[in-house]
């Protein structure tokens, strides 16, 4: 469904010395239709940049991106624009995705309007349907983002991302701003929708346990490089890189308290 080949991203920093900083270095992977690839790695390792590049929201310095048989890195602006509704991104902080001056209704209706997918009347019905899918009460429809909790806002952001029936979603730390029980709610909702709609997912997180619950395959990233990619169960059974081993050990150690007598 989606394939990245030799993706590299460099930034120039410094005005005079033109120091080159490589944020993502020669990354290749592919995700099959309906599958989820998890990317795990420490903060600042380039996960977010990579996620944005996969949607061509950021241009890579080198490399190709293929989406459903088309090389999107070769597309013109206008052809790329036509692709847009088929791919979406969900951010860590729902506040960045929602306009504070827009009601929930308008936020969810906006994609329909931009893409002229429906008339006014249908839009209202669509919005209600989206709210239902993400498990929000219809009476929230005329509220503003500041009147919602973090979990509710992330559900609205999810509804917005799902509005145009995308085939591919990049989720960048979608629950790290939420508490445990709300995180569990949002993630299991996400799992359900993904299965029902056959969505292909790139799931980015620094939390290996969360990734383990969500992903079919896991890519471990460090300092812009992918150290290894394995099926989730294989990765935990036989990590191929010492850094992965270190992550898993820390995880096991940190979770040692868990499950005793529950």
């Amino acid at each position: 469904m989606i394939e990245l080949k030799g993706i590299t991203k460099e930034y120039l920093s410094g005005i005079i010395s033109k120091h080159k900083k490589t944020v993502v270095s020669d990354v290749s992977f592919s995700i099959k239709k309906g599958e989820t690839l998890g990317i795990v790695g420490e903060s600042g390792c380039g996960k977010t940049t990579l996620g944005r590049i996969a949607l061509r929201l950021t241009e890579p310095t080198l490399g190709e991106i293929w989406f459903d048989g088309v090389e999107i890195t070769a597309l013109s602006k206008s052809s790329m624009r036509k692709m847009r509704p088929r791919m979406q991104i969900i951010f860590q902080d729902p506040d960045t995705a929602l306009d504070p001056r827009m009601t929930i209704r308008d936020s969810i209706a906006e994609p329909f309007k931009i893409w002229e997918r429906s008339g006014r009347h249908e839009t209202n019905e669509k919005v209600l349907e989206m709210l239902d899918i993400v498990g929000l009460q219809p009476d929230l429809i005329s509220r503003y983002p500041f009147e919602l909790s973090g979990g509710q806002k992330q559900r609205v952001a999810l509804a917005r991302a799902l509005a145009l029936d995308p085939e591919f979603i990049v989720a960048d730390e979608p629950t790290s701003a939420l508490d445990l029980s709300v995180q569990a709610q949002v993630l299991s909702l996400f799992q359900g929708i993904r299965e029902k709609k056959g969505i292909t997912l790139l799931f980015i997180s620094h939390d290996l346990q969360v990734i383990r619950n969500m992903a079919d395959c896991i890519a471990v990233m460090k300092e812009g490089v992918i150290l290894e990619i394995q099926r989730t169960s294989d990765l935990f059974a036989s990590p191929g890189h010492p850094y992965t081993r270190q992550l898993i050990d820390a995880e096991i150690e940190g979770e040692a308290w868990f499950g005793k007598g529950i």
Partner: protein
Amino acid sequence: MQLLEITGLQVSFIKDREIIHVIDSVNLTLEAHESCALVGESGCGKTVLGMAVMRLLPSNAQIEGSIRYRETNLLELNSHDMLQILGKEIGMIPQNSAMVLNPVMTIGRQITESLVLHEGISSKTADEKAIYLLKRMDIPDPHYALSQYPHEFSGGMRERILIAIVLACEPTLIIADEPTAGLDILVRKQTIELLMEHSRDKTFLLITHDLGTAHELCSRIVVMYAGEIVESGNTREVLSMPMHPYTQGLLTSHPSAGLHPIPGMSPNPGSFPEGCRFYTRCSSVQDLCTKEHPSLKETGKMRKVRCLRYD
């Protein structure tokens, strides 16, 4: 010896002429050298509780009850006397450290400023102490770090710098609000180890969503839901045998348990249901739960729970 004794604490906010109760009749005692974790659903009032102790709540807050630190009721102090205690006696590591560090001031200034203010030492001695603290916090090249700005550090480093700032004045009581939120596992581990090492002879109130950190750092745990304490006890016991249905749900929500959420949403302050505040989401709810507000009852040594099932 009791270092901090919170009795009958009630916090409300006045908003558009309405009074919204956010925290209700909270009693909490910290023995000297004890470390206690405070956990609970987002919005249940943990941060407000910590801020109440520090007297840092905005002016639309109404506080009732008493917060006794050693011999003094903090709620009766004037702002000058309170400032003497803040930082020096009680230090706070606030939620969202990135917002607390001043982006246009060097790290060195930010650490030494409070030292010079509280301890009246020269700026040269303060610099030396700052370097020593940064070194203890595993910040590479602490000398150079003094002249750097917050944005030049990663999230994990900024968190540790903040911890260094708080520890600089050697407070007796430390209140840390989510010190490990958003950190990846290796950095989190490092941060916990540093906190453990440096809080050994201190009294510690840790506000967190991270049950693993709570387990590692704290001997006692207090669980809050909708503005009140619903369970408390020895951390190990509570996490291995949770009694309150909310605590049980919190544990099954954990990724290690496969993310089984509690259905529904926690009520907002101002619209807490009558009876048990958890009844709309509880799988063990009985008729009585919708009418009678359960009280916090002692069920064993150090163990308390607020649920009618244990009456």
